[in-house]
């Protein structure tokens, strides 16, 4: 499998972001990303996908869309739509209709920031997902960087610190979202998760000074999706797009918080009856089935099955564990950074049946 780094949920000047496709792609190239997926609000930007080059390097830029009902008050139920290749914002008023339309168009639907808190200090409401009766979506954003800023900035001093020193913010996905995911997984559902930057690079003016909140470059150095592709990117747009969306659909990926330490090289496999399963795969349980986890650096590792901890180790860069029960197995890793324990790696599950 070929690992690539992909940042999802970016807003450009086509909606409320402050970067152009060109400037965002330059920032992505500088951060050594392989792919970025822009998802402007209720607009599917056509004709700008492709490989962007700068300084002898390149990044693949894909276009999705963040769809939501703009007439709804308060704002809820934002959905990231990828690979549908059509403008589907007309379905925004009914989440289930939107999900169905995305499926009909062969696209992927990820519920954006399903759990977050309002940031009342600057009149930002919580834009959670509330229509939990909806079904058939691909998965959800387990970890959204802008949501975390909203959730953890409880006082003005807190907010100022987070704005000027964003490296202090991230500690992990919302507990509610993790719990919800495990609950779905334990019922046998297959749900892929991604992380989202929700990048806007908002600019605030203070007299002659301009402060950019969360520049794109910061997002790209922090929370990324690491996709395991069946083959290396070829440089051909349509071919590579299919590879990337296939990996996201299946959950052949993990979420890596790359700021404390690069997560590239993480692996989680289960070997059973001579078959090796990777994240997103389904495998039959046989006697001797063994999970193997490798980290690029020693850290705290948790192996979880249907929300229940199977094994927990500290300061290790590898772990093996034989499995005796079916279920959705996933891995969480934590590391120390800036004096605090922080979420570092969150894998998609391997489904053991």
């Amino acid at each position, binding site marked *: 499998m070929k690992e690539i780094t992909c940042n999802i949920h970016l807003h450009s000047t086509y909606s409320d972001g402050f970067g152009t496709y060109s400037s965002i792609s330059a920032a992505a190239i500088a951060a050594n990303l392989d792919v970025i997926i822009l998802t402007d609000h209720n607009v599917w930007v056509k004709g700008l996908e492709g490989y962007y080059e700068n300084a002898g390097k390149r990044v693949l830029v894909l276009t999705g869309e963040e769809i939501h009902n703009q007439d709804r008050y308060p704002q809820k139920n934002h959905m990231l739509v990828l690979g549908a290749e059509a403008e589907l914002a007309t379905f925004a008023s009914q989440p289930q209709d939107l999900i169905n339309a995305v499926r009909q168009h062969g696209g992927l639907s990820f519920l954006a920031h399903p759990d977050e808190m309002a940031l009342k200090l600057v009149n930002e409401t919580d834009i959670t997902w509330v229509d939990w009766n909806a079904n058939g979506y691909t998965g959800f954003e387990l970890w959204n960087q802008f949501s975390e800023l909203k959730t953890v900035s409880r006082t003005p001093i807190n907010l100022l610190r987070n704005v000027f020193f964003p490296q202090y913010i991230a500690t992990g996905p919302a507990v509610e979202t993790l719990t919800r995911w495990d609950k779905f997984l334990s019922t046998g559902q297959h749900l892929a998760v991604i992380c989202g930057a929700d990048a806007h690079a908002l600019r605030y003016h203070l007299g002659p000074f301009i402060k950019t909140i969360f520049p794109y470059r910061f997002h790209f150095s922090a929370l990324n999706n690491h996709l395991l592709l069946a083959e290396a990117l070829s440089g051909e747009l349509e071919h590579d797009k299919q590879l990337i969306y296939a990996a996201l659909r299946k959950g052949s990926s993990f979420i890596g918080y790359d700021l404390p330490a690069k997560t590239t090289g993480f692996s989680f496999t289960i070997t*059973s009856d*001579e078959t090796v399963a990777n994240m997103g795969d389904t495998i039959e349980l*046989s*006697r001797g*089935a063994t999970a193997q986890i490798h980290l690029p650096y020693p850290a705290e590792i948790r192996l979880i099955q249907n929300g229940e901890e199977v094994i927990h180790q500290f300061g290790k860069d590898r772990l*093996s564990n034989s499995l005796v029960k079916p279920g959705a197995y996933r891995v969480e890793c934590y590391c120390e950074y800036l004096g605090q324990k922080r979420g570092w790696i969150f894998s998609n599950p391997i489904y053991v049946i």
Partner: protein
Amino acid sequence: MTTTNNVTRLLESKKIPFEAFELPTEKLGALETAQIMGVAPEIVFKTIVITREKKKPLLCVIPGPNEVELKAVAAVCSEKKVHLPTQKEAEELTGLLAGGISPLALINKGFSVILDESAKKYQAIHISGGQRGLNIKLSVASLISLTNARVASISIPSTNSLS
């Protein structure tokens, strides 16, 4: 897994896929092991220690139902004669208890390894995990690569019912 030892750590460090089978911790023969695991005895390999004159002993890895053919082993390693030590001698030579003797636990300890060529019929085989109560299934290619084993025909079907 409750059983983690140098063998599993070695496989982890080399990123070699393996399956770990936990078994009762008493001494088990390959056939009993196969029976407990519910797999064909032909894919459960056992490790036989063979001594030779003035040289480090050999480790012969052969299928559970078979017995080592000493003449064939001698021919493979260009010796006039090789010997089958007692269980106690084998344990002293390897530092491992019978039932836990495994080439995977003796890597870089100067033992030459010969793998019976019948292993090449299979994608993966079972082998002791270096201690009683732990059996490892891994690909034949990985086993050969890890232990630098020579592959040769060194066994014949046993005349005994228990190995």
